[in-house]
């Protein structure tokens, strides 16, 4: 369980948010919404451990965690706005590298299955350079099922995705929640995971 107490964040001189409290229990997804510049991405980066919060505390399973905390790195999967793909490598190579970077092991079959699920079967050997924005997003999201992490942090996962892609995302997130996983999702567009409970948190 992830608990944030009294979080505040500042970017430059601007205070993004303060006195933010929320709890994320197994089987729930929390949508973070709000206008541009309200601190959605910053909140996700704080939870991921990439950015330090101005003040407040964050606990994971009752243990206080800070930036780049090892316990948090082992529990969370962060998919940022940038899909983290190398242009020169194929979709499958990119996926395999990202999965092994996070300590997972994926054989060829599992990688192919994940790519096929995101309708990328024909693109698996193509270099990421020739993929469209939506296809790049799909490759990044194909990691979700392979990573085996209880906490998913998704920054604008629906950006550039078409309707079928969003349906797939609903299904994958729903499966994750059903298994007792947690998801913190920053998005302009709320979607309805196929299972689990969702809450939303609006930043001003």
């Amino acid at each position, binding site marked *: 369980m992830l608990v944030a107490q009294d979080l505040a964040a500042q970017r430059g001189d601007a205070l993004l948010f303060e006195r933010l409290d929320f709890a994320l229990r197994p089987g729930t997804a929390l949508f973070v919404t709000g206008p541009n510049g309200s601190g959605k991405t910053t909140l996700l980066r704080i939870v991921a451990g990439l950015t330090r919060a101005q003040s407040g505390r964050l606990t994971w399973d009752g243990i206080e965690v800070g*930036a780049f905390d090892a316990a948090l790195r*082992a529990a969370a999967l962060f998919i940022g*706005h940038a*899909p*983290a*793909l190398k242009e020169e*490598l194929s979709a499958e190579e990119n996926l395999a590298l990202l999965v092994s970077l*996070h300590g997972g092991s994926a054989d060829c079959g599992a990688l192919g299955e994940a790519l096929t699920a995101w309708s990328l079967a024909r693109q698996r050997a193509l270099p990421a350079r020739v993929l469209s924005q939506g296809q790049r997003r799909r490759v990044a999201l194909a990691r979700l099922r392979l990573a*085996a992490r*209880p906490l998913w942090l998704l920054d604008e996962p629906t950006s550039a995705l078409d309707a079928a892609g969003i349906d797939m995302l609903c299904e994958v997130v729903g499966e994750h929640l059903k298994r007792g996983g947690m998801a913190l999702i920053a998005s302009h567009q709320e979607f309805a995971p196929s299972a689990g409970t969702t809450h939303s948190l609006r930043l001003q």
Partner: protein
Amino acid sequence: MSEAALHPPAIDDSAWRGVSWALARDLRLALRSKSELAVQLLFYVIVVTLFPLGIGPEPGLLRTLGPGALWVAALLASLLALPRLFASDFADGTLEQIALSPHPLPALVLGKILAHWLATGAPLVVLSPLLGMQFGLEGEETKLVVIGLVLGTPTLSLLGAIGAALTLGVRGGGALLALLILPLYVPVLIFGAGAVDTLRGGIAPTGELSMLTAALLAAIVGAPFACAAAVRIALD
């Protein structure tokens, strides 16, 4: 079943796995963009060749200047290749993923630096005996330049990586990187080029080679940690 899918059985977060992951990945990326490597290597060849052209064909003078010219060119070529060490990973979001990996960040950074040296430093070392012929260097002298470069160029990559990580996301980072890093390269240059002078003076250059080795060992231990800290600052 549900627990297994949420929590991996055991994440292998050993440092060696981190080093080998980054090493294998960056070497593969380097092989896919050979033209960038060729540019850096050609730069080295051209800079070294400019010296004999500019100084003239006087054999004694060329022999005196040779080792220094090779070293200065190696320094500049090493500097030319540095910005690409972290910049592309920073731009496409891979560096975030690397920093969030369960593997220790200094180990991943060390793997990246090793790959960078193998792709950009090692070819310079291999080419240098050939380029040394332009200066009429003798067999023993050429051998000493090569040994010096083998010990010195990894140090250049390690020190340079700190600068590359510190200047991430800074506008005009390339020029700033040169200002930051070139002064740090000076000791390596002095001992590397100085070894040949010592040899010519009739003394075994053990002192210089020991200093280069010591610098390399210190850089291997220290640089990955400094780079990791700089990367975290750049991501914050």
